[in-house]
């Protein structure tokens, strides 16, 4: 971006997979349920109803904060955030304003540090469905615990954003606090995008002296791929405006997947006045250090990947793939430990057992849907040298040559790679019950 430096910050919302609501005991996560069947006076905003916070939701927010290396505030509270919209039953959202649960964290990716500004807890709104002249409202989702993660505007390109979001997604799922499913809306991402004009001075100093005077928020992005597209489009759009000597309007824009463009939502340009004040219905929360310490964070994907590379000597790429889903990494390690302990006497014909198993999994040679013992059985099968049935092999070879005369001739005429085709055919006929080396050797003999 010649002469311009992108300044991108992210706001991510994660729906927690608690059983019941942030402030009531209605079941949450009932995606696809009949409308308004998981509601109560609290999440419907009936007169006289009162919120009581969900302990686990608070715990899980602390967990997320810790996983992102944040400082956990020992004193925290909820605040009311006021605005009018039909999906907001009370006319305010219970959220957190100036004393959020976690602040000041970071995620390090490929040597780059991306700072986390804050992590806080709030409640989700109901859902609107537009149908002709009507706007229909379903409050099942109202009151679902929602964690908001806000980064500092540390990103200057869309690739980093995509990688960061993918890593965050993996971390959240590893913590087992949310399905983080973008299709179901349990993870939502909103980039805030602006461009800094890099004049001579700022290029020399390259310091964050001042942030741009505007920022554009983009909503409604449903996948990591689309986030990248939206950012790339937006940066171009803003660049053109700035090059004309104008300033892009500070606004919220939507994203059109089909056209891969952002569009103005023409919402009010005035800054929201949320009139935050402390939620009087919920006493503030005070945590002891012991309590914070008791909330443990499992080995995070980044750490696990590092361990796989360093202690198991796996290829970095493979370690990365294996650690994207905690259950896959767990499965992998269980297989390894079982093989090492109970089958150490077997000659498994390999130097790096871990890499071998990793290959089987990644190449899908053996399915990880299998129960662990079955997986191990198959591994042993594949690795134990097979005794080839010479008679069966001989008739298979004869068959294959008979049916593929042309190819056999090509080989005889010097086309060496024709052999591999024939080998493959023989292996097929032998239904894998032949060692490749043996097949090659017999075939070449016979073809001579």
């Amino acid at each position, binding site marked *: 971006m010649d002469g311009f430096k992108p300044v991108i910050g992210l706001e991510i919302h994660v729906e927690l997979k608690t059983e*019941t609501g942030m402030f009531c*005991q*209605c079941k949450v996560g009932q995606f696809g349920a009949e409308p308004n069947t998981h509601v109560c006076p609290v999440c419907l905003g009936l007169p006289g109803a009162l919120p*009581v916070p969900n302990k686990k939701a608070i715990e899980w927010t602390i967990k997320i904060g810790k996983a992102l290396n944040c400082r956990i505030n020992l004193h925290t509270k909820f605040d009311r955030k006021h605005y009018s919209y039909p999906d907001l039953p009370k006319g305010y959202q219970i959220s957190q304003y100036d004393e959020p649960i976690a602040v000041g964290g970071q995620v390090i990716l490929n040597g780059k540090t991306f700072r986390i500004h804050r992590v806080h807890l709030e409640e989700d709104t109901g859902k609107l469905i*537009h149908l002709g*002249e*009507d*706007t229909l*409202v379903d409050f099942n989702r109202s009151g679902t615990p929602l964690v908001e993660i806000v980064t500092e505007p540390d990103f200057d390109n869309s690739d980093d954003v995509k990688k960061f979001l993918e890593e965050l997604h993996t971390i959240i799922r590893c913590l087992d606090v949310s399905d983080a499913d973008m299709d179901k809306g349990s993870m939502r991402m909103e980039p805030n995008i602006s461009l800094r004009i890099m004049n001579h001075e700022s290029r020399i100093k390259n310091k964050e002296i001042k942030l741009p005077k505007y920022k554009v928020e983009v909503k409604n992005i449903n996948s990591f791929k689309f986030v990248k597209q939206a950012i790339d489009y937006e940066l171009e759009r803003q660049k053109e405006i700035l090059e004309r000597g104008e300033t892009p309007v500070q606004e919220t824009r939507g994203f059109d997947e089909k056209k891969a463009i952002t569009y103005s939502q023409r919402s009010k340009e005035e800054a929201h006045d949320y009139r935050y004040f402390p939620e*009087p219905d919920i006493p503030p929360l005070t945590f002891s250090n012991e309590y914070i310490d008791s909330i443990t964070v499992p080995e995070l994907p980044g750490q696990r990947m590092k361990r796989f590379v360093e202690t198991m000597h796996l290829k970095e790429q493979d370690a990365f793939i294996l650690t994207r889903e905690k259950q896959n990494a767990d499965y992998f390690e269980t297989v390894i430990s079982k093989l090492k302990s109970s089958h150490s006497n077997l000659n498994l014909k390999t130097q790096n057992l871990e890499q071998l198993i990793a290959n089987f999994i990644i190449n899908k040679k053996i399915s990880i849907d299998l129960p662990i013992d079955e997986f191990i059985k198959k591994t042993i099968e594949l690795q134990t040298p097979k005794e080839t049935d010479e008679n069966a092999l001989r008739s298979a070879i004869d068959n294959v040559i008979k049916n593929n005369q042309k190819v056999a001739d090509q080989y005889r005429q010097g086309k060496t790679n024709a052999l591999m085709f024939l080998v493959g055919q023989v292996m097929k006929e032998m239904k894998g019950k032949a060692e490749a080396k043996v097949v090659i050797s017999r075939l070449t003999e016979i073809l001579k």
Partner: protein
Amino acid sequence: MAKKNILTKENIIHLAKLSNLQLTDEEINKYLDQLEQTVEFIKNLDELDTTGVTPTSQTTNQSNATYEDGEINEQGLSSQEALKNAKNKKNNYFNVKRIM
């Protein structure tokens, strides 16, 4: 020190918008006076020294009132009960005029 503000009609209209209220011209003018009077109430708070005082949001020192996730929902409503008082509904949804 509280600042004395001269509120304008635009300010009142803005506040009415935030409050989601439709006001008549008469009401707008009335509020122009009344809101200024709010400042009067603050004046005598200037007589109190509140430096270093922590604000009270909870007069009886409650804290850490939470509930355990997964508790049985004693307050749950059927969709019928939930929609009973709504004047506009459709197929078990609440219905509002189309939002642009």
